[in-house]
């Protein structure tokens, strides 16, 4: 199987879908001549030309609205946000127009659009450039929220997103763009609402996604294995729709759940997972559900404070030991 980087996987997805359907186009800041702020769209301008790979001025509300308007009448745009933090100036367009158009128009107009870009913290980018906004967008009916954690999922899920007839919020991470992984040869897609059991286990279930899964949770799981604690690690891959059955079956087996996520605790995705699990798996829980989240503060700049604010391996281990009644 070929080994590619996360960004190459995204590039391949867009390339293949644009070759497959002429109505697909890419729009965003620096996506064309600059070849992408993070080089995700490298080479696409040369291949498809300026009609389909479009550089925009810094006007998120404006170009997001144009994307949505064009999607209403037949095109299939991919709108790149240089970072999901900047999507907030286009929030009105995304949640009031994209999310609600099908419903408000009584089925007249659907909006087949993909909004993609990197989200979450990188290094030392400070508060307004580091936000994990998935719970914000998952809150709105009408949107789908997708968060691949590896190259194989990035390509398969982006292809599905582009073919989906609804607005899709596709959150990547600049920290993962260079990471390599195996992807299947040839044509493949990954459906939404289908999570993955990354590692089977019996002592405790951990649900985690995106870069935190790769950089923090997976490492903590290996450390715990050394202490003879057998974690079942689940990557939901899509936040909305969420693969509830996979999570419920796991918790019924292990009787314990820890959620590890990058977002803030109040009304975060983990809060929703907590509610659903406590509702559906009540008689199977041997301990209250634990969450490891970002600290409830805007992310500070200083390196040590940033590390302390984000989830880390120690916090995960502590949470696991707590639900297992160790120490």
């Amino acid at each position, binding site marked *: 199987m070929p080994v590619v980087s996360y960004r190459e996987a995204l590039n391949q997805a867009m390339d293949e879908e644009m070759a497959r359907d002429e109505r697909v186009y890419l729009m965003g800041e620096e996506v064309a001549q600059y070849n992408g702020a993070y080089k995700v769209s490298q080479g696409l301008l040369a291949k498809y030309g300026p*009609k389909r790979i479009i550089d925009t001025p810094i006007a998120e*509300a*404006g*170009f997001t609205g*144009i994307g949505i308007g064009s999607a209403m*009448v*037949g*095109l299939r745009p991919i709108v790149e946000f240089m970072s999901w933090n900047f999507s907030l100036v286009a929030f009105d367009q995304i949640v009031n127009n994209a999310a609600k158009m099908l*419903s408000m128009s009584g089925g007249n*107009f659907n909006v087949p659009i993909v909004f993609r870009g990197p989200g979450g913290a990188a290094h030392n980018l400070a508060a307004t450039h580091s936000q994990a906004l998935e719970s914000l967008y998952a809150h709105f009916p009408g949107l789908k929220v997708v968060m691949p954690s590896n190259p194989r999922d990035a390509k398969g899920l982006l292809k599905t997103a582009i073919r989906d007839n609804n607005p899709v919020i596709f959150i990547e991470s600049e920290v993962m763009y260079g990471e390599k992984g195996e992807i299947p040869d040839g044509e493949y897609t990954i459906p939404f609402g289908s999570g993955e059991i990354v590692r089977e286990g019996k002592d405790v279930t951990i649900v985690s996604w995106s870069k935190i899964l790769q950089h923090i949770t997976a490492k903590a799981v290996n450390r715990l294995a050394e202490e003879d604690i057998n974690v079942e690690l689940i990557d939901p891959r899509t936040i909305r729709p969420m693969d509830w059955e996979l999570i419920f079956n796991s918790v019924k087996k292990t009787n314990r759940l820890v959620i590890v996520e990058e977002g803030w605790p109040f009304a975060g995705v983990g809060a929703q997972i907590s509610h659903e699990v406590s509702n559906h798996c009540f008689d199977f829980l041997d301990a209250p559900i634990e969450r490891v989240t970002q600290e409830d503060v805007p992310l500070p700049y200083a390196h040590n404070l940033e590390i302390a604010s984000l989830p880390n391996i120690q916090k995960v281990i502590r949470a696991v030991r707590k639900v297992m009644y160790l120490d």
Partner: protein
Amino acid sequence: MSEYTINILQREMNQTSVKNTTHIDLLGLSPEILLKWYDEMLLIRRFEEKCAQLYGMGKIGGFCHLYNGQEAIATGSIGAITPDDYVITAYRDHGLAISKGLDPRRILAELLGKSTGTTKGKGGSMHLFSREKNFLGGHAIVGGHIPLAAGAAFASKYLDEKRVCLCFMGDGATNIGEFHEALNLASLWKLPVIYIIENNKYGMGTAVDRASAVDALHLKAAAYNMRNQVIEEGHNVLKVYQSVNAAVAHARRTYEPSLLEVQTFRYRGHSMSDPIHGHYRTKEEVEAQKKLDPLTMFAEILTDANLASESYFDSAEERVKIIVDECVAFTENSPEPPLEELYTDIYAE
């Protein structure tokens, strides 16, 4: 106008003899079209009055923004485009929807939240839509639809379709961010969208000179190097038609957008909760504007051109009354949406 409306008017008109057969050109428009325009504006006026009555009876809830006094803009603008072209507007959308061809019976049903409404009762007064008629809504967030209009124009150019998009907005919308971003992009990328400001002098209760640093709103286009024009006689359907027609032709030829400002007046308050006068407009001001009623003005033009007379205008009232009464009957006989509708049209297949 919708096929339904045209059929009714045709049927009724055939029973009325046209007084004068002299063929006089007004901007190259046939008498048939001109008389239809009169009927259409009268229909919009009486339809809106019926909405006011129904709102007063508590049958229409929420917000209801009426078009009385602005009819010439809808008829004159949409008279300059084809059914294939797009129209999008904000929430003062009943008149434009009627002009664009949505069935007025289904518009009224939508206002009363019935399942037979244009948007299945799920949109209401501010969210009339029709894919079939290329009417892209009905939008409630001020300025939120302005980039969408540029997007529709973008798609037309991308797909080589030669359609234009007419985007209507109020004077207040020219101050919000999305207006500026969209105009910049439309001009920069040459998108065939015609932005039409319906300047009725007040953004709800705030006069234009208290909201905008620039009084001549059409001049804001200069910041974006965009073709622009003001139509001072917004009550004159022919003047409106003339300017919009020129802008549309320019867009079809060059893909370049335009910003048109139509000076007009609304005879009713901003919405049904807003008084007609006494709050921020004086009674005298409103009365003075009523002298420039688009209906009376156009009736005069038609009379002077020997195309119609008093009896025609009376017969028009009767024709329109039939339609409005049928709208009410249709609506009253329509059911509310079933509860299952709550969960439909959230995600597309």
